[in-house]
Every structure is written in structure tokens, then in C-alpha cells.
């Protein structure tokens, strides 16, 4: 709603932090809104500042938005001291500089590979990439209701009450029990898939 003239800066800060709040408690729609809002300016800036193509700029922008989203969901970003725009430009600049540093020159970014490396490098222990891929297969076999539930809990950091309401469980306790069952199923599927691939490896040798 409109505010008196003297309140513009308070209003701006409020809007920035409102965006964070909305993403934390919301989902895809809020992500889409942020994407649409800053897209034009970001693309104009990155293509001009780093002489990359429009398509490469879009790839970097998509990763930027995902990292922004991830930082909010993981609780790393709670309030902004700068504007959302400055924050996004900062992420984009870091992604591009780090990519150029690794590749020694400018090459188009492989988004899925980049995301995987980003998540793996964030952990203190280095993970077995093969096991990581097998976990992905197990997750795909888990089926959508279970997968959605554990995604909401482990990634979107939703509470059991929110999950219970969104997925229409009887109560938060039922949602919690269901989450434990889903994780048990995921572990079982992972072990099955892992032993399958190990059998193949043994057979080859």
C-alpha cells in the first residue's frame, strides 16, 4: 500500500525483506516473481560487464536465482543489508568469476554439473560421485508423494504442521511418521540400487 513521501527508504527495505520472507514461506511462484523482476536488468548488466552472450547470461542468471533461493531456504540469508538487486548481482559475479578461474578461460556454464559441484563442495567431506548419482536414482524411484514430503522437510525446511496442512495429513504427528517411513524406503532403495551397480562392476571385472 502507498506510504507517505518520507517513508520511501523504509518501504524499500521492507520490500526487500518481504521478498525474503515470502520465499522462505512460499515456493515456486515467489521464485518466479523474483526471476521475472530482476531478469532484464541482470542480463543487461552481465552481458555488458563480462561480454558474455545473452544465452550464457540467462544460464548464469538462473543459477544466481537458485543460489539466492537456496540461501534463503537454508537459513543463510535472513535479512538483507543491501538491495535484492545488489545481492543477486554479487552472486552472479561470483559464479562467473569462479567459473572462469576454474576453466582458465571463458566457456559456457554446464548448469547441472555446476549445481552438483556447488552442493558437494559446500559439504566438509568429499562425496563419492557415483553414490550421489545412485541416490538420485533411488529418489526418482521413491514416487511423488514420498518425494514431495521429504523435499518439503529437508529442502524447503517446512515444519510438520505446514507439511501436514499442505499434503492433507490428519495431523503433524501423522506427517512425521510418514516422513520416517519415506526415509526408510529411500534408504532401502538406495542400498538396492547401489548393490545392483556394484554387481555390474564386479561382473565386468
Amino acid at each position, binding site marked *: 500500500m502507498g506510504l507517505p513521501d518520507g517513508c520511501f527508504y523504509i518501504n524499500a527495505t521492507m520490500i526487500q525483506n518481504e521478498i525474503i520472507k515470502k520465499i522462505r514461506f512460499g515456493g*515456486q511462484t515467489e521464485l518466479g516473481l523474483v526471476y521475472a523482476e530482476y*531478469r532484464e536488468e541482470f542480463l543487461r548488466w552481465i552481458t555488458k560487464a563480462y561480454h558474455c552472450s545473452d544465452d550464457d547470461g540467462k544460464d548464469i542468471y538462473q543459477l544466481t536465482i537458485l543460489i539466492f533461493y537456496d540461501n534463503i531456504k537454508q537459513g543463510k540469508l535472513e535479512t538483507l543489508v543491501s538491495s535484492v538487486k545488489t545481492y543477486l548481482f554479487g552472486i552472479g559475479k561470483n559464479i562467473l568469476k569462479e567459473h572462469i578461474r576454474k576453466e582458465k578461460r571463458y566457456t559456457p556454464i554446464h548448469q547441472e554439473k555446476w549445481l552438483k559441484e556447488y552442493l558437494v563442495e559446500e559439504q566438509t567431506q568429499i562425496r563419492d560421485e557415483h553414490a550421489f548419482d545412485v541416490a538420485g536414482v533411488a529418489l526418482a524411484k521413491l514416487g511423488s508423494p514420498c518425494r514431495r514430503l521429504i523435499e518439503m522437510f529437508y529442502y524447503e525446511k517446512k515444519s510438520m504442521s505446514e507439511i501436514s496442512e499442505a499434503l492433507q495429513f490428519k495431523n503433524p504427528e501423522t506427517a512425521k511418521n510418514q516422513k520416517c517411513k519415506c526415509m526408510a524406503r529411500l534408504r532401502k532403495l538406495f542400498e538396492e540400487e547401489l548393490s545392483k551397480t556394484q554387481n555390474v562392476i564386479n561382473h565386468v571385472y
Partner: protein
Amino acid sequence: MCTDKNDVTLVERYFDADLDDVGMQDVNSRLEADGAFKALFEQEQLLIQAIRYHDQRDKLHYLKTMEGHLSKNVHKASSRSLRPWHYLVAATVIGALVVAFVWLSVPEDPNKLFQAYFTPYPNAFEPGVRNIHKGTQRLLALHAYELGDYETAARGLKQAYNDHPEPGVLLLLGNANLTLGYVQEAEENFNTLIKNYDDLDPQAKWYLSLCYLKRGDVDRAKNILKELSETEISYASKAKELFERIN
């Protein structure tokens, strides 16, 4: 792995942040001394990491779908308002000479400025609408909006808003009306959006300023643009640019 069900529960509770200090200490000491327990712990960590990665990947596909629609919209908007590029280059060169002459003395035509700055807001609310044969009035209208069929979109969005008022629908309805030249209706839509909701104020104000510009009410357009240009939101730079061009 030589671990029992209690260990699985213990690890799961660790990652669910459901352990007290004693439980946390138990996990930490077992991690140092018990190899099988450590393997179980790392497996759980890996699975949670994979959940996060796959959700990120799904979100990436969603952004790509959205990008496809946004690029299409920009392309449509450009093809409506621009001639082929070589004409544009020629016009720019000639224009630059003329502009150098009149830039500081003659304010630009508000309607032309409207044409240059108006791009319908993308459907960021439910892009890539599918299964429209099973869809509600709202989905049909969003689909029409994405296709650029603004007549159908305006009718459907109006109905959808009356049935179930939500700010996103009102923003798109205002945009559909403005695209069709129904400036008064669009103004009403954006004013309602500013008055009744907090969610989309900057967007509503930006498009409201374009409504004023479209009907030649330069002073009111300038007031809003000045307000937007003094904020730190994403519209600030283009609001400032447009404000200066009107001046």
C-alpha cells in the same frame, strides 16, 4: 553395515535437529569411534544432499520453462513495435542527429514513450499452463494471456478475479486491459491492487504510471515515476530513466 534400528533412528533424529545435548554428544563420539555408524551417518547425509540437488534441478527446469515464455513475450513485443534491424540502425543514426538537436528542448511524446516502455508483465504466477481442457477459468485465462490473446485473457481474468480475488490475477488483468487500450479499466485494476494488497505495489505503480502516460496525464505519471525512482527496487532505474525522458 553392523548398525541397528536404534542407530538409524539416532542418525535420522540428528539430521532432523531433534536431539538434545546428550544425544548430540552421543552421535559425535560414535562418529569418532564407530566406523559402521560413521558410514550410516554419511549415507544419510548423502541422501539429504541428493534431495536438495534434485529439488534444485526441478527448480532449474521451472526457471527454464519460464525463461522460454519470457523470451517469447519479449520477442512478440519487439516484433509489434520494431521494424527489421537495418531500418532500426538507419533510424538510430538519423535519430541521433535529430535528438542531438532537440533532446534538451522538446519533451518526448507521452504516447510514444508509453509504446517504448510498455511490455506486458509476464505470467510469473503459473507459467507453462498445461491441461487446459481440464482447467478452471483462471487457467484458461492464464493460457490465453501467455498466447497473447488478451481479449480472452481479460474476460477470463476478470471472471477469475471476481470468483476468487488474488493480486497476481489483478496485475495480469490490468496488463491485458492496458494492452487492449482499455486504459480506464487498467487504471482501476492497478489502483485496487495498490489499495487492497501489499504484494505487488511496485509493479502496480509502474503500470499505473504507464496508464497515465498513455492518456497524456504527464504530471501524475511523473509523480509515480519519481516515487519509484527514489526506491531501491528493480523498477528504480527504468522509472528514473523514463522520468528524465518525460522531463
